[in-house]
């Protein structure tokens, strides 16, 4: 568990507008962290500051062991909509990116080729980028971000512009990269975040409102419920009249909050069975990441 990146009190103020407000967090080596927040929360600005593109108004971004070096050499950055020089071929662009990032000139060519093959552009590497489709550009974007084997990979909405097939392919590439490098990516597609995340950062109006592991955040916001669907409203009413638990009901549904009462699924099933209630379904519900997202973002 070596710390790789320490961001402290990072702020960006444009006029009166605090786009990023005193963001503080650390990233551990070889973990993936999702930066989650609604549109306009400051995700892109925060990533741009970490990439060295935007100068922070206040605060620091410190990449470990790189204190005397240009930290941009150890960072790979993929903007949300990467723009390329259309008159270059994929291999020319990737080689240029590698050279600029300080890859040894003797291995630039082979590294660029390997990277393009890795992202699935092996057959298209001699084509002009101007002829590329959106999905191909996104993969090329990934290639230029990883060709110099950065310690930290910053990805701004890496899959949100892609169709489901492209999204799946890029997610699989990211999962492979996860083994070798530290990834910080912003997203508002929460299924993706759930799939490859060790740490979650929730950003709301520029403020970091939640920071923790996926499981700890889930636990905090999960809000479990046992939901019973009765066959009729009368049956639900009968259950309400007998039960001693704190309940909430609507039509033929009854929900039980098990957290403050010592109730589990077993107790509920036993009670239903004892008085032969006619039921359709009993379900243990926890909030998924989307509901947690709504909860975190909406609460003020």
């Amino acid at each position, binding site marked *: 568990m070596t710390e790789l990146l320490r961001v402290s009190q990072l702020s960006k103020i444009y006029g009166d507008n605090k786009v990023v407000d005193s963001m503080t967090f650390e990233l551990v080596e070889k973990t993936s962290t999702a930066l989650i927040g609604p549109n306009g929360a400051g995700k892109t600005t925060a990533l741009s500051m970490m990439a060295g593109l935007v100068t922070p108004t206040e605060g620091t971004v410190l990449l470990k062991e790189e204190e005397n070096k240009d930290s*941009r050499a150890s960072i790979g950055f993929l903007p949300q909509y990467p723009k390329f020089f259309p008159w270059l071929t994929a291999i020319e662009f990737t080689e240029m990116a590698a050279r*600029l990032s300080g890859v040894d000139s003797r291995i630039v060519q082979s590294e660029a080729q390997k990277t393009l093959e890795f992202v699935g552009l092996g057959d298209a590497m001699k084509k002009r980028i101007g002829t590329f489709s959106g999905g191909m550009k996104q993969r090329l974007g990934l290639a230029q971000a990883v060709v110099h084997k950065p310690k930290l990979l910053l990805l701004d909405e890496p899959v949100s512009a892609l169709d489901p097939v492209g999204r799946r392919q890029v997610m699989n590439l990211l999962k492979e990269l996860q083994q070798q490098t530290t990834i910080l990516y912003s997203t508002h597609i929460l299924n993706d975040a759930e799939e490859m995340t060790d740490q979650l950062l929730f950003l709301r109006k520029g403020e970091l409102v939640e920071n923790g592991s996926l499981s700890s955040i889930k636990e905090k916001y999960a809000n479990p419920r046992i939901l019973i669907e009765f066959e009729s409203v009368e049956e639900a009413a009968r259950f309400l009249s007998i039960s001693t638990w704190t309940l909430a009901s609507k039509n033929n549904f009854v929900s039980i909050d098990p957290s403050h009462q010592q109730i589990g699924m077993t107790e509920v099933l036993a009670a239903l069975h004892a008085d032969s209630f006619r039921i359709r379904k009993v379900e243990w519900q926890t909030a998924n990441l989307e509901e947690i997202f709504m909860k975190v973002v909406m609460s003020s």
Partner: protein
Amino acid sequence: MKNTGVLVQKEFREHSRNFKLYWIPIVFIILGIVEPVTNHYLPQIMESVGNLPEGSDFMWPQFQGTDIFVSLMGQYQLIGILIIILAFMGSISGERKSGTATLLYVRPMSFVSYFFSKWIVINAIVLGSLWAGFLAASYYIRILFGPVAFGDILKFVGTYSLWIVFAVTVVLTLSASLSTGAAAGLSILILFVFQVLDSVIGAFWTVSPWKLSIYATYPLQGDSVPTGYWMSLTLTVVLIVLLFILGAYMSKRNASKTTV
């Protein structure tokens, strides 16, 4: 500066693939050929297509080869500089606007190298075009008007080239500092309007980059070195250096304005 080579290669590829490397020299060469040819055949051209009334007789001026060089320079002052402004006004601002600069700026790249790579490649294209144009012109001038001393041509083109480098630096520095439109507008102001102002009220001073194009013609007119010639050269070099420093600084300062 270790990345300069990579960036210079990128600039050359860019200008070769958007054909600026080819069409700019072609335009300069065409201007260089057309100027002596039309001037030489002017009486015949006017006779056949000029719609002159029957029996009209003009005294056509007797041009010397040196006059043609000066009038060709007049063409480059207008069309040549306009080409420089239009072709290169977006060199840096355009990369910022389109977002193609983003993937360069996030790399460990020095903005001095970045600015230098553009400056050297644009100057190479423009000066190459200018020299090719004057070379083509001197061939036709030699045939049609007789030889002009090579040393005089060299002095003339040399002085004029410094003015062109100044023009390129102005355009590039403005492109680094402002948006493409504003860069174009201010370039026109500095390179055309100031030129006119300098010739209207410039009698009060002798040292100015805008006087270089006039001073450049002194060897062709058989004059002695004009007052303020060397000081103007020195001032222009100093201004080019200062503009270069400003341009590199402004590229860095405006880096965060690139489209992410």
